[in-house]
């Protein structure tokens, strides 16, 4: 699985994939597990995925992003248990200039959230747990 990892993400290594001397701009989005959601304290998240489809979708996003902007894109998403303060997802974009790098990076993370079949279960400080449903009101 090229875009999914069951172990801690190495941001430096991921960023190195898009670094090149002809690319003057590097934009990185790092998604961390936040310690709160909907007014509740969060201890950790557990990510699961339809792995074959998630990998295919990530590949599609990277190819489409690299076709739309003159950039190189690297993307990795964690699976499994991720504690508060740990990294859940990294998007890095290298481009000749900052305009395309910022635009492409924003587009990639929005596409990941829109179309990659990944789910997360939240574990709260009160001992309860719930699946996250972004379509449910607030």
């Amino acid at each position, binding site marked *: 699985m090229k875009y999914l990892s069951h172990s801690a993400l190495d941001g430096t290594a991921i960023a190195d994939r898009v670094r090149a001397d002809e690319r003057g701009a590097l934009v990185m989005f790092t*998604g961390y597990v936040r310690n709160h959601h909907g007014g509740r304290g969060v201890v950790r998240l557990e*990510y*699961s*995925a*339809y792995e*074959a*489809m*998630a990998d*295919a979708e990530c590949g599609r996003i990277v190819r489409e992003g690299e076709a739309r902007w003159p950039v190189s894109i690297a993307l990795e*998403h964690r699976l499994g248990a991720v504690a508060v303060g740990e990294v*859940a*997802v990294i998007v890095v974009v290298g481009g000749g200039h900052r305009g395309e790098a910022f635009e492409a990076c924003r587009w990639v*993370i929005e596409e*990941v*959230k*829109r*179309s*990659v*079949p*990944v*789910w*997360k*279960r939240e574990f709260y400080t009160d001992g309860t747990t719930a*699946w*996250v*449903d*972004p*379509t*449910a009101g607030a």
Partner: protein
Amino acid sequence: MPATVRVLLFARYAELLGTDLLELPVAAGTTVGDIVASLRTRPGGDTLPSQLLCAVNLRQAKLTDSVKPGDEVALLPPLAGG
């Protein structure tokens, strides 16, 4: 080869149906919607939402899309990645 499709369930839907994998029979003309309707009749299936996201062979699919033996159908709860 029996005329079936693999049906994959994930996250909340796997919990509702009590399994993450089923083999269901298909005939000529069976649609994704027919597969979903069949799941609704199983224990726990009546709590599946009326609108849901499906995939066939790793691509998002409409309920009206047809399925054939050997296809992999997946029911996807609301996506929550990133």
